[in-house]
């Protein structure tokens, strides 16, 4: 029998080092000892549903292909099939990457979702004279919205996952996004950068954020909210 010199515990002959501290151990050779645990590790199965991935992909592709054929052969009045194709691309980008890869980080998935929305809007812009509104309003709003969602997600994951903190971040981000929407629309219409109606929204958001921050900082208030709302 061998002992770990650091932990003082006796070690099973199957152990090459102490599992508690990692100190190597030497066992005098004896006869064949039965190992206490099997060698074989079982694969717990795929945690992603590949069947569903295949089904969604086939459904989306066949829908797009069918619509293209109908558009080319039967209903040839306009390029209506582009809308369906855009929707199919969006659905695929929304669901599939997260289902295929376990290693794909959430920000990457959210960025892909943003790309999906961007592509769909671009297809709509192609049909509805979007040469101006797409680059000046739609694209910046989609890009900034995606960045905001990614940042909120990162804050939730790495800074604080408490409901109150998430609520403060969400309220502030909503206020800031409203200001950006107001600025972009104003610039599109008048060519000037100025804030109008969004000033009221951002003021309300700031009041809500300050109130939530106070609840978060005052222990008695925070506990009361937690108790009443089970959060």
């Amino acid at each position, binding site marked *: 029998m061998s002992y770990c010199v650091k*932990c003082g515990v006796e070690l099973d002959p199957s152990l090459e*080092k102490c599992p*508690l*501290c990692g100190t190597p151990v030497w066992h005098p050779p004896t006869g064949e000892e039965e190992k206490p645990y099997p060698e074989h590790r079982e694969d717990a199965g795929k945690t992603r549903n590949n069947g569903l991935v295949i089904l969604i992909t086939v459904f989306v592709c066949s829908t797009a292909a069918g619509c293209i054929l109908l558009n080319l052969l039967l209903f040839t009045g306009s390029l209506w099939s582009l809308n369906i194709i855009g929707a199919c691309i969006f659905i695929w980008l929304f669901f599939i990457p997260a289902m295929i890869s376990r290693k794909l980080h959430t920000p990457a998935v959210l960025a892909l979702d943003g790309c999906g929305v961007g592509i769909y809007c671009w297809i709509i812009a192609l049909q509805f004279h979007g040469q101006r509104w797409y680059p000046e309003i739609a694209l910046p709003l989609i890009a900034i919205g995606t960045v905001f969602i990614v940042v909120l997600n990162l804050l939730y994951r790495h800074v604080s996952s408490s409901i109150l903190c998430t609520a403060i971040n969400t309220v502030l981000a909503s206020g800031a996004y409203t200001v950006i929407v107001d600025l972009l629309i104003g610039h599109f219409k008048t060519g000037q950068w100025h804030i109008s109606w969004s000033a009221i929204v951002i003021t309300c958001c700031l009041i809500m954020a300050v109130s939530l921050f106070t609840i978060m900082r005052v222990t008695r208030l925070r506990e009361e909210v937690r108790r009443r709302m089970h959060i």
Partner: protein
Amino acid sequence: MNKEKPKEWYKLDLSANVYPTLQRRTFSSVYRLTVTLTNEVRPVILQQALEMTLPRFPEFNVSLHTGLFWRYLEPESGPPPRVMKDVRNPCMPMKLNGHGSRLIRVYYYGCQISLEAFHSLSDGNGALLFIQTMTAVYLRLTGIVIPVGEGILDITETPPADEMEDAYMKYANSGVTPGRIHEKTYRVRGTKEPFYTLNIIAGEMSVDDLKAAAHRFHATITEYLTSVLLYALQEDQARRQESYLLRPVKIALPVNLRPFFPTKTMRNFITMMYPGIDPRLGTYTFEEIIRQIHFYMQFSLNDKFLRADITTNAQTQKNPFVRAAPLFVKDIIVRRFYKRVQDRQSSAGLTNLGVVQIPDEMRPWVRRVDAIMGQPFSARTNCAVISYGNTTTVNFADSIVETDIERYFFRKLVQDHVHVTIRSNREGSMFCSEESSETSDHTAAGEDTKCHTV
């Protein structure tokens, strides 16, 4: 005209309702009991023993089904589960697919027979009866005479109805329902192992050594081991956290309610206690911890407090608004509550299944019994204790790389003159941070000095 017999089904008991809610592809509330025999297990006979035993335990011969408002269990009439070769990573997630998906698994490896069960079926006590009876049937089939009684049920008798009762509802009749104290506790933040790894570190020790150590502090074995785990958690927190970030350290300790409330139920009948210390008040010596835990147990473990506790738990299920809510709404709320409140209420889990009672005729053929609590919900460690003969086994199970809690725990036992033999399924992935390496430079005796000077 032949009237078809209505299909049998069972309600989930009070605590069994929670476990399927937490179910994910990567997580199931599964625990394991292992009996190590003196001779190699023969799988064909084990399969036969399982098939003979299962009808006597209808609560294990079921599958889980989903209704509109609640989940329920339905007896399975199909072929029984097959015994399987054991694996290195036990307690893997189970699929709850309704018909045909049994919620138990039986494994064999060398001289070991293992039973894994989904927690909605039964608690450790019910599962212990099942594996003891199955082992007795197995031994009988190999030609050994094992009598009925002392933890071995008669497989020829019809299962009495009261073995299936929801004992919680029977005893949830206290006049008062004390509120819950929801307090965030210290959380062990470990590095997650890749899916699916369950690291086990098992310590084997003599019951006499443990008793002697516990009696030195005028405590029971459960109180002593709980205190050692709290001590280990306190040490871990002191090393990892700045003093202004300290949190209370608590342990989720399931209490078997059967000794307090007479019942024959084989289903879940446990409640949770949260003994702990608050290091924000100052560092506790081991003597202070064990004294606090001893008095906490003395104060809380009585039928009045426990009945009130059960009543509080049952109140939620009796609430008409809760009953009327669709299952998916219940799932969202329960899972959220568990994740944000229940899981954060304790820093680790410890369960003591007590002493295994089997007939004397069976003892020469059984070498050891182990219990494993299974995969913890969050990145922390769970500890299961069980005693057989003069041997107590303490199994730590977790899915994190670090072994700091286990190291502090077993070193403390060694300091208290308890001889510990360790075995593990870890594959060289244990990790000691720099600080812990420094600490590990102390010998067990060296730490003894540290412990008493704190």
